[in-house]
């Protein structure tokens, strides 16, 4: 029973203790062979062997519940382990996110993979190095303090021994001390990790381990999984929210060569065929008669007024400072502003894919690109009605996921279809399955008021947010009701949480003498199988809330007659935030002055805007330069500058690449992206109706300023640089035109109307 070609199963692997010698893995995961492997619960975090093995050739095999979703985390973790073990990165190999061979670290999310997820790996590597040195000391008869290590060779003078030579001789050592769980899981083996001052691998631009294989075409994505006997499935979604199956007629599909079955379970409908093209055709040929969908959604044009009028289901207030009512009542000048952000789609590049092999006895393997394999294991087990340890979820990379896009649901669809036909089934979502029916980033609206005294000081701010919950579909997909397909079979979503678009959390924590900030969560339009159900989309609530707050700070600056950078520096306390803003301004060549620029009669006008992004200890200053066509309303972003302080930098080049990509993605979210819907369903279904950034939208110049803080631990970098883009662009449009756009996206129609 070999789950890997030429390798050994984990059970064989762990049989002998701390570090076990076995034949070298060839490094390639072979999915078709995984299907034969037994399932089991995740290994215990208490055991060093659960995390790391040293192989006879002296290379290291690491097992982690973290994974790679496109931002180079796999490379960063490789560097961190290699650094701690004094090995070259090429000799450190990883297994990621396989529930039967890796510790449950909560999967990935929230820009925590390096900031939190690397800590146990660093500690484990330090513990393994200490154990190896101890052993080498005995073998060489040299005190540990006198030993040197270079690329896995331990030496003292002319005496030398390699990691590989002593690996098999090691016995199991003491258990690791375990603290926390999920993202915060940490272990400690008692060995002190290296002083970062001596790092030689961490902090260097090691080429990403996935990049050349991807470009050369040897990398395997989840979409490439082929299991013996595998069938192909497609799903057929309802005519709209709340529509039920009245009848299903598969007579036309039956004549398609390779057609196997149409599966109907209440309102879940899918087809299964011997090949993919047959499944595509069958999904079109099956005629489903649906009951009339509910008119559960408001008219799109009324969305924001609906949100402002709706009774909140939950409210949270941060402690009040001072008396905002009094500040507003006595102000020399007050300003009010309302900001609106629509639902947005993950619109992942690959629309979603899952492969499931449900055996008759319930033993199941699922291959998924979802960000949280250990949670999926629990959720799929619940969906099947079997204990979690009967289900193995094997993570393989899908397209960039940006949160909880629906890869989780595609996996559940595969589980439902595989169970129904008794064979492995690969479900590939079509484009509309993702863009129309995938979960969405929530719509958010914000009402702000500000008081300015006679001297031009901002004396008070009131902030009120109203948003659908980014946790309605929980980011942790560990229950059956989390999945769209399961909801269509009648299973309720019981795990939703209220998630707030907070002042100070989802936007910078500016201090004012008088501050009153409250956040409301709105109930979903419909709590079962809604195409407008909301969940985590990259930096949940961050870009939206920062758009409102960072635009409003600009409005305050304009009303107070001060430079927008100067006002920010005055009201933010965190030194790193100030430093990041100033670093961006220096790079840009910020000209201190009041916005907007003096009015001209020019057809094309230019401007610049600045915004701050603060996210869990990462600080971003973003400056946008725009050219606005006053006749067409087209906003062209001509330059972006982004300063970025996420503490210690692990891989500068990979970090820059992720920041640059975040900037472009968030530029598209600012100027183009909006989920369209009618009273019953989502009508933006593809790349034409849901537009994202394209080549022509990309600024000619993108400058990134990395701020490296070697004295700090590494922080998060996956999302923070998404946060400030929208406000920077809107502020630049104001600077150019004197007109404030308070609604996302800043589409030509909207800008043109505002300028008229």
């Amino acid at each position, binding site marked *: 029973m070999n789950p890997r070609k030429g390798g050994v199963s984990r059970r064989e692997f762990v049989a002998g203790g701390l570090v076990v010698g076995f034949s070298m893995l060839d490094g390639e995961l072979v999915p078709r062979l995984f299907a034969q492997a037994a399932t089991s619960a995740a290994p215990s975090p208490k055991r060093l062997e659960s995390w790391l093995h040293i192989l006879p050739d002296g290379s290291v095999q690491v097992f982690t519940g973290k994974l790679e*979703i*496109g*931002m180079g985390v796999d490379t960063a973790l490789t560097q961190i382990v290699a650094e701690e073990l004094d090995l070259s990165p090429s000799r450190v190999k990883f297994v990621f996110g396989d529930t039967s061979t890796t510790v449950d670290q909560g999967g990935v999310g929230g820009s925590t993979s390096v900031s939190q997820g690397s800590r146990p790996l660093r500690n484990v590597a330090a513990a393994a190095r200490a154990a190896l040195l101890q052993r080498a000391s005995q073998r060489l008869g040299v005190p540990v303090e006198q030993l040197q290590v270079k690329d896995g060779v331990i030496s003292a003078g002319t005496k030398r021994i390699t990691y590989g030579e002593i690996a098999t001789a090691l016995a199991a050592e003491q258990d690791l001390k375990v603290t926390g769980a999920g993202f915060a899981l940490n272990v400690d083996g008692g060995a002190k990790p290296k002083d970062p001052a001596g790092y030689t691998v961490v902090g260097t631009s090691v*080429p*990403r381990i*996935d*990049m*050349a294989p*991807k*470009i*050369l*075409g040897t*990398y*395997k*994505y989840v*979409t*490439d999984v*082929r299991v013996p006997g595998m069938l*192909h499935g497609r799903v057929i979604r309802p005519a709209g929210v709340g529509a039920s199956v009245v009848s299903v007629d598969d007579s036309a599909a039956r004549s398609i*060569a390779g057609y196997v079955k149409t599966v109907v379970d209440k309102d879940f409908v899918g087809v299964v065929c011997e*090949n*993919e*093209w047959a499944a*595509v055709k069958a999904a079109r040929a099956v005629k489903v008669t649906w009951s009339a969908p509910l008119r559960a959604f408001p008219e799109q044009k009324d969305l924001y007024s609906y949100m402002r009028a709706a009774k909140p289901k939950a409210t949270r207030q941060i402690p009040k400072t001072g008396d905002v009512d009094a500040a507003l009542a006595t102000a020399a000048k007050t300003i009010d502003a309302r900001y609106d952000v629509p639902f947005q789609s993950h*619109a*992942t*590049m*690959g*629309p979603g894919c899952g492969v499931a092999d449900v055996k008759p006895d319930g033993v199941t393997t699922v291959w998924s690109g979802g960000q949280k394999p250990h949670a999926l294991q629990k959720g799929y087990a619940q969906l099947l009605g079997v204990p979690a340890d009967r289900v193995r979820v094997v993570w393989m*990379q*899908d*397209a*960039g996921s940006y949160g909880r896009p629906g890869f989780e649901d595609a996996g559940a669809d595969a589980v439902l279809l595989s169970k129904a036909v008794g064979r492995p089934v690969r479900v*590939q979502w*079509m*484009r509309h399955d993702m863009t129309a029916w995938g979960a969405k980033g929530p719509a958010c609206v914000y009402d702000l008021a500000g008081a300015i005294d006679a001297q031009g000081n901002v004396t008070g701010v009131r902030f009120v947010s109203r948003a659908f919950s980014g946790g309605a579909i929980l980011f942790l997909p560990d229950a059956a009701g989390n999945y769209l397909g399961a909801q269509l079979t009648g299973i309720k979503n019981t795990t939703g949480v209220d998630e707030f678009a907070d002042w100070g959390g989802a936007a910078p924590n500016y201090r004012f003498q008088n501050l009153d900030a409250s956040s409301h969560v709105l109930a979903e339009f419909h709590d079962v199988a809604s195409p407008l159900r909301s969940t985590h989309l990259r930096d949940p609530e961050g870009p939206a809330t920062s758009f409102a707050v960072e635009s409003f700070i600009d409005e305050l600056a304009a009303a107070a007659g001060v430079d927008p950078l100067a006002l920010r520096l005055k009201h933010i306390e965190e030194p790193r935030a100030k430093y990041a803003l100033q670093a961006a301004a220096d790079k840009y060549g910020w000209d201190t002055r009041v916005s907007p620029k003096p009015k001209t009669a020019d057809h094309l006008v230019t401007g610049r805007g600045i915004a701050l992004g603060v996210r869990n200890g990462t600080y971003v200053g973003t400056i946008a330069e725009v050219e606005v066509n006053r006749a067409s309303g087209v906003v062209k972003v001509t330059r972006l500058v982004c300063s970025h302080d996420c503490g210690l930098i692990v891989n500068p*080049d*990979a970090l820059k*690449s*992720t920041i*640059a*990509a*975040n*900037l*472009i*993605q*968030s*530029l*598209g979210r600012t100027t183009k992206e909006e989920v369209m819907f009618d009273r019953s369903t989502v009508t933006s279904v*593809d*790349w*034409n109706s849901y537009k*994202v*950034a*394209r*080549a*022509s939208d*990309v600024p*000619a110049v*993108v400058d990134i300023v990395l701020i490296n803080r070697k004295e700090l631990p590494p922080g998060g970098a996956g999302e923070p640089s998404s946060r400030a883009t929208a406000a920077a662009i809107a502020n630049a449009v104001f600077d150019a035109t004197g007109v404030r756009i308070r609604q996302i996206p800043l589409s030509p129609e909207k800008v043109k109307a505002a300028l008229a």
Partner: protein
Amino acid sequence: MAAVTLTVNGKAHRVDVDPDCPLLYVLRDTLELNNPRFGCGLGQCGACTVLVENRAVRSCSLPVSRVTGANAKNVITIEGLAANGRPHPVQQAFIDEQAFQCGYCLNGWVLTAKALLDTNPKPSDAEVRRACESLVCRCGSHTRIFSAVQRAVTAKNTAVKA
């Protein structure tokens, strides 16, 4: 269903497929050439791009009959770009720039760049963007991608001079 010959990466394959089946599914499911990827099935994103007679084509929207039988054409996928075990210079430029995030879209960008440079060895930045406007990179890797294309241009023109 009909048995036809499909030539991919210089190798002739006998395949028994529905003539209307998009080339993408034949490449992926029949020949297990997995790099052309399903992005939309609508020709809107380019994830499924292959070269047909050296032109970048959306394989999700191209019936296999258009490249087989009487219409037989040579199809190149990204697997077939490398020659003599060495990456194609365009691939190398994308590797050197570490151009992508998730990389799911990359067949479109790499093969469109290759086809562009074959007909226009020194494209301007505007010409590169125009050639790429119909492609999607959802992660937003565009700035690195454009740098990679210009790196490939430089490499190509340097090589020609040498």
